[in-house]
């Protein structure tokens, strides 16, 4: 597939807008449909498209596996961290009220961070899943 110039150029052109759209969905989730989960999938799809068109090796160069694994856990840690922070500030787990100067500000900060954590984990899990499935032949078919 990597011989086809139309696909290659189209992918290069589309790559940035897809990620931009993903970020829009991520941070616009408070006002319209969207949020961390959908954004995660959209951002993942940009990397998957790149890996499909330019080959898995190029994809891994663009987004290495160990960074992928790190970010995959980081999203969950961020989400749990918000909960633990609110616990340390004297409230229940995941009560965002204490995070800001007023209750509403706290809720805004909490929701923003939490959605970001979801987006991080989801996008990285989807990329990791695709890598694992596409890479299966080289490790599994050795019998």
């Amino acid at each position, binding site marked *: 597939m990597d011989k086809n110039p139309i696909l290659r150029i189209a992918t290069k052109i589309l790559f940035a807008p897809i990620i931009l759209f993903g970020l829009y969905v991520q941070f616009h989730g408070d006002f319209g449909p969207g949020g961390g989960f959908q954004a995660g999938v959209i951002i993942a799809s940009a990397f998957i498209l790149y890996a499909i068109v330019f080959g898995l090796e190029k994809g891994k160069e663009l987004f290495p596996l160990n960074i992928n*694994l*790190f970010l*995959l*856990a980081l999203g*969950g*840690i961020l989400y*749990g961290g918000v*909960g*633990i922070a609110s*616990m*340390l500030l*004297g*409230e*229940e*787990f*995941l*009560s*965002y*009220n204490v995070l800001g100067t007023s209750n509403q500000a706290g809720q805004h900060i909490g929701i923003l961070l939490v959605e970001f954590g979801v987006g991080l984990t989801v996008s990285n899990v989807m990329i990791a899943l695709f890598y694992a499935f596409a890479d299966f032949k080289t490790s599994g078919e050795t019998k």
Partner: protein
Amino acid sequence: MTDIIIKNLPILVVICPLMMSLIVVLIPYNFLSWVITLSTTFITFIFSLLLYQEVYLHTSISYALGNWAPPLGIEYVIDKVSIVPIIIISLISFITTIFSSKIMPAEINSSSISKVYSLWLLAIAGLIGLVTTGDAFNLFVFLEISSLASVALVAMGGQKDKQGLVAAYNYLVLGAVGATLYVIGVGLLYGITGTLNLADLSKRIAEINDNKALIAGFGFMIIGIMVKAAVFPLHIWLPRAYAYAPSAVSVLLAATATKASLYILARILFSVFDISDTLIINTLQYVILPLSILAMFAGTIMAIFEKDIKRLLAHSSIAQIGYITLAFAIGTKASVAAGFIHLFNHALIKGALFMAITSMSFYINKRITINNLSGLGREMPITFVCFVICSLSLAGIPLTAGFISKLYIIKASISADGIWIAMLILASSALSVVYLWKMIEALWFHEGPKNLLIKENSLVYIPLLIITFLNIYFGLDASLVVNSSFEASEQLLGARK
């Protein structure tokens, strides 16, 4: 700081393994990941003991997550009932983690050890979360965390024996169907009551009478949970999953996984719905009671004809689950308490039996069949003395924990005018001696291979010794278990009558 810990104990028992699982996966050194896992399970166990103390001070703790008052937000409920499975899960998971130190690297390739420990902690966290939650949908989420993690752990057995993969697949598909049926049930109940909080749900259900959707919702919920708890005709995933999982995973799953679901079953039957309701009385009498009796005999008979030892123990688990559901089905306070006693004791017994058998496969690189057992008792005395003691406990010989639970189940069934049930329990126990004797005979009285020169590893047998000691201790002085179980059933059934 202590204030914060005491105040947040209900969530800490879940969050502690959950957060650590996210960190363990990043650790490249296998030994270090084991150390972190061990300390996490230890801390979780300490938290659960503290929680036990707190519960007996306050009778019931409600923890509103995100500080949104239930039924608006999700609520965690810890009472004298839910503390029983929490203690079981955290205790067994701690002991099993010690056990896994040598066994895990021998069976799983070193590049995936940290991932396996991460999944291990996720499975534990999922089970504890399942038990503590007071919200019907949150229960589903944790059900899925624990079952996905356990499926992956079972599939790790596929590195040694390809059947582990098929076992994991069947577990996954049946588990997913069970979970989906549960979701349908919750959906129907939500559709007619408009709430997901279990306490609120039970209040609103009491106001509704004669609604077909209520009956259907109840049925779907119960069937979904029964798949997860491996109640008799829905148990088909269990023998293979236990038999082909890696050793340490078999121990963990056999001792904890079905226990959490059985607790949920009791909770739905007695606390969400009303025990005096004809719907529940009919379900107990005409569905769960016959199925339990069938399970008792079917499980035992399958175990008698089984030659693969791990499968044999799995079949025996099905029979033991039958005893527990039978005790629930009788439906008196004494019998439900007996069910909880057996829930605890069976976790100890099955954990120990699986530990003894799988530690054997650590020394001898073979699948363990009845033929392979010949003469090993003399080669590995420590392991198999423990094995014999726990077998006696399973059969219900006096001075062991198993005796106590049988005693209370039989006492409860006689006082509920079920002499014939008591007779059936005795008959099935007598049958279980057949397969236990078969193994003991092979171990101690058959000539075996000479010159094996097995040197038992202390990290492998110390956890086994701990569980065996607990088996004897709770056989001699059962007051702690019995009292907690009676308090639990009092709280579970007492509120309604």
